[in-house]
Structures are given as C-alpha cells and as structure tokens.
C-alpha cells in the first residue's frame, strides 16, 4: 500500500461535515448515510484481508452476520445495553474468525476464496436451520434499547441520536483500523501480502500473524454486523448470505483496496448507486453490472486507483514543467 499523504485537516473537515450533516439533508438521506458508515466499517475490515493482506475472501459475511445475531440475541434475551451488545457482536465475530481462521489462513488464492465460501455457506445454512435461535429466514426482530449514560437516557429511536451514535462508533472503528495499519502488525500484514515467505524467513510467524489479522477483521466485521442489526432492528439470513459476502468484496474493490480509505469510498458509492439506480431504473441491474465491467476494465485499482493515477500524472507534469 502506498503511504497515504495523511493530514489532519481533511479528516477534521469531514468529521465536521458529518457532525452538521443532519442540518443539511433529509431524514431519509441521513438513514442512507448511516448505512454507508456501517458498510464502511465492514468494507474496511474486509480490506485488512483483501487490500492489505492480499487474500480474496468469499466468506466475510459470516462474521458480519454472526456478530449481528450475537448482538440481537444478547440484547433481546439478556437486556444488554447497546454498546455492550455491539462490542459482544464484535467479539463474536472475532471468535468465529479465530475458529475458521485456523483452517483458512493456511490457504492461499483460490483455495482460500473457496474455503471461506464453504464456511460462509455452512454458517448461512446453520442460521437458516437453527430456527429456535435464529428464527430462520424470518429472522429476529428486536427493539433498539435506549442509551443510558449515568443518569441520562438518550432516545436512540430518534434518527438524529442514532446517527450520532453510529458516527461515534464509526469514527472509533475507523480510527482503530487506521492506527492498526501503522502498528508493527499492520506493517507485517503488508509484508505478508508482498512476500509471505520472506516474512517468515526474517522471523515472523506468518501463520499466527495471519490468524490474528483474520480474527481482528472478524471483530470489526462483527461490530459492523451488530450496528447493522441494531439499525434495522432485526436480523435475518440475508445478513449472512453469499450476496452480503460478495457485496463487501465489490465495495472494497470498487473503492480500491490499495488505499486505506478506498473501501469507504466504495461502500458509499455502492450504497448510493444501488439506492438511486434501483429507484430510477427498473432494470438497474444491467446498469450496475455494466458499471462493474467498465470499472474492472478501465479502473483495475478502483475509484481511489483512478485518483492515484491522476495524481501521479499531475505530479509528473508538475515536475516536467520545472526547468531542470
């Protein structure tokens, strides 16, 4: 991964914009932004494997869905608070990640992709079959509990409050994920993508490291799942099916796995395109499929890849203009 030219100013501007966004857009659009934020976490967690780790997974929905079910069941049956529920959703995702990870991180390439797919399908089938717990494809409906902060009770029914809650969680998660890329483990992830064998020859236990990264990716996917479930106030098997697993792949790909914020752009773009296209055009799937193909053909590094190559060209031109 290219080192992004990270500066605080644009980040602060974006956060400021997100803070005042409820004043600018309608309630429904705000709902859409919430969806985008949740999928941003999901896509970023996926990118730990895909963009940073070089692993193509078909099974990331398993952790998203598992986290979502854990959150819902715990809140519904054990009256957990929402932050606690979402945290445990993340832990559930991590637990599943480590369980499957033991097997899958040995694999590479197509074998990895297909084993993750098999595990995803197993979890999906389990969710469909274990009706007493998961409610089958009807799912489980529940109420988003209010947030108790000391003596305060914040009504999370209100879109506005819920928006700020999700914003907070998203900022924390993205912050953690960003920080993670700067830690030794994050750098090691890139090393393993580039040349796993060499990484092991300079003393890194690549298997255990991959497993840890896989587990962490599962954690954040679980958090995203928990948030999504709390947002929809229900969870069904579509949280865990293959469509979800390919959605996150597409988001990451469309945004571009090569940059940290690429998946965020992808998550926003896909959510938006899907929402708008399907409202405007009945046969929107043709347009969306066509867009994918054009993107794959002409922007193999995703939207952020387009930006990077534009910047490179611009840099070159600037350098060229300077008299040497």
């Amino acid at each position, binding site marked *: 991964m290219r080192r992004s030219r990270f500066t605080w100013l644009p980040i602060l501007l974006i956060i400021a914009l997100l803070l005042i966004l409820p004043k600018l857009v309608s309630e429904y659009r705000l709902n859409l932004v919430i969806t985008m934020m949740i999928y941003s976490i999901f896509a970023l967690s996926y990118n730990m494997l*895909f963009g940073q780790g070089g692993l193509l997974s078909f099974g990331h929905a398993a952790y998203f869905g598992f986290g979502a079910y854990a959150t819902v069941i715990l809140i519904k049956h054990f009256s957990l608070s929402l932050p606690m529920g979402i945290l445990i959703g993340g832990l559930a995702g991590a637990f599943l990640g480590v369980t499957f990870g033991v097997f899958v991180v040995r694999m590479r*390439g197509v*074998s990895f992709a297909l084993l993750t797919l098999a595990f995803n399908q197993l979890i999906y*089938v389990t969710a469909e079959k274990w009706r007493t717990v998961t409610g089958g494809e009807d799912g489980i409906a529940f109420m988003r509990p209010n947030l108790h902060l000391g003596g305060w009770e914040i009504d999370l029914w209100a879109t506005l409050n819920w928006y700020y809650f999700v914003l907070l969680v998203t900022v924390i998660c993205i912050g953690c994920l960003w920080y993670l890329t700067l830690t030794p483990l994050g750098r090691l992830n890139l090393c393993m993508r580039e040349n796993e064998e060499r990484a092991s020859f300079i003393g890194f236990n690549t298997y255990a490291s991959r497993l840890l990264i896989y587990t962490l990716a599962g954690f954040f996917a679980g958090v995203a799942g928990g948030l999504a479930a709390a947002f929809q106030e229900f969870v069904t098997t579509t949280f865990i099916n293959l469509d979800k697993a390919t959605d996150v*792949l597409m988001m990451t790909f469309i945004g571009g796995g090569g940059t940290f914020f690429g998946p965020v752009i992808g998550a926003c773009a896909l959510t938006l395109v899907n929402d708008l296209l399907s409202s405007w055009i009945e046969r929107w799937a043709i347009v969306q499929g066509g867009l994918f193909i054009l993107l794959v*053909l002409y922007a193999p590094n995703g939207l952020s890849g387009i930006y990077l190559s534009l910047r490179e060209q611009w840099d070159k031109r600037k350098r060229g203009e300077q008299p040497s």
Partner: protein
Amino acid sequence: MDALSIIPIQFLHGLVYGMLLFLVASGLTLIFGMMGVLNFAHGALYMLGAYFSYSILRWTGQFWLCMIVAPLLVGAIGILIERFLLRKVHIHGHAHELLLTFGLAYIIEEIVKWVWGNQPLHVEVPAMLSGSIQFLGITYPTYRLFILLISVAVFAVLFIILYKTRAGIIVTAAVSRSEMVNALGINVPLVFMLLFGVGGALAGLAGVIGGPYLITNPGMAGTIIIDLFVVVVVGGLGSLPGALLASFLIGELQSFGILFVPQMAIALEFLLMAVVLIVKPEGLLGEKA
C-alpha cells in the same frame, strides 16, 4: 415399499442428478479448473443455452437441432467474453475476473428476463423422451435416462479429446506452461479462447438438456452456480474424472441425505467441500500443485 427397498432407486435418482450436475459443471472444469478463471457467469451461460433452446424449439420444433445450435451460440458468446473482456483483465488476477464475470452474470440474467420475460417457460421435449420406461418394477422417466446417457457421452468425448488427442495434450500443456507451448509454435491465446468457447458450449448444451428438466426460468443460473464450484473444487481443479466423481458424490449425498438426514441435506455439500479443502486442498483427483 419400505424405506430399505427404495435404496436402489434412490441411488439411481442421485446418479441422474449427479450426472446432470456434471453436465453443467463440465464446462466450468475447463474454464475454472484449467484456465483458473473464477467464472461466475458460467451459470448465466447455462441459462442462455436453455433459453436459446426454447426459442429454437419455438421456431423450428426440432429439439435435436437445439442440441447443436444452442451450444454453438453460447460457445460463440463465451469466445467473445474471453476475447474482449477476460483477456484484458487476466493479468490483474482472480478478483478482477471474478468481478467481471459477476457483472456479466447480472447483465445476462437481466437481459434474459427482458427478452424472454420473467415467467418460467414451457419447453416441449420430443415424444420419445417425454414418456416413462418400466424396468425392474419401477416407472422411470425416459428423460432422466436421456440425461444420464448424454452426460456419460459428454464425459467420454471430453475424456478422449483431453487425454488422448494432440489437441487435448496441447491444452494440458498450455495450462501448465503456456510460455513454452507458445515457444513451440502454438498460438496459446487462441487455445485459451477456444477452450473458453468449448466451456461455454458445454454450458449451452447443459442448458438445452437441463432446461426442460430443471425448468427454463430466470432463476436457474443463480441456483446452480455455487453447486458448480463445489463440484469443480471437490473433484480437483481441472480434473474431468474428478468432476465426474464429485458430481456423483454430491448427487448421492443429496439423494441419501434426503432419505436419512433430511434436515441436514443442504449442508452436506458444503461440509464436503470444507472437509475436502482442509484435508486435500487439491481436490479428490486433483494434481498437487
């Protein structure tokens, strides 16, 4: 009849379904197994075969003609896909091919619904295939036996071509060492394009045969694609006998799963895939990399 006496017939059911699965998966064995292209549009090509067959049947009334023309059409589409789309993204790797074929599957499925409508279509098979045959005291649909026959024939023809002719040897060699084959004077890109075409044509043929049986409907691509990947992976990438064995296993697993553990039946094939990938990642009859 008691539960035990239906075991032979259940075996036959599983066999026929497995062979139908093999028929559809045979093309993917070439495309995914040999060329390594994660072709998610294979199901869509299969569906196209079924729909082309429907239209040809409407115009000409000749089912046998469908079995020739529809595969040729689908094969041609496969060639176009390889030449103008997949070849361009091949250097970028699996994810790109996957996404490209995903987009294609989307588009093909929508176009099919646009052209032929959303409703399932009625495909009339020739009278000699539509009846039933009595044997061993059971009634068995002729068409199911026809499926069995075609699948075995396709396997035999493919097996002979792939393993016994120079063309097949070239394909095997081009898959493992394309540069060397190229340097020996063989146009490898053309070989791959034709291979993709043959894979497409096999999907098309499977559509012609499978359409009347599994019903020509817009959902037929989406419901079969995962099964196809399971077959190819379990059998071993690029191994035709492997695909046959895997199809047979999955057919029987399904059939006997329904008999003995009906609640678990749909999980069995994924369990099989996970176990095979963990224990023998190269597949049952695959060559170790």
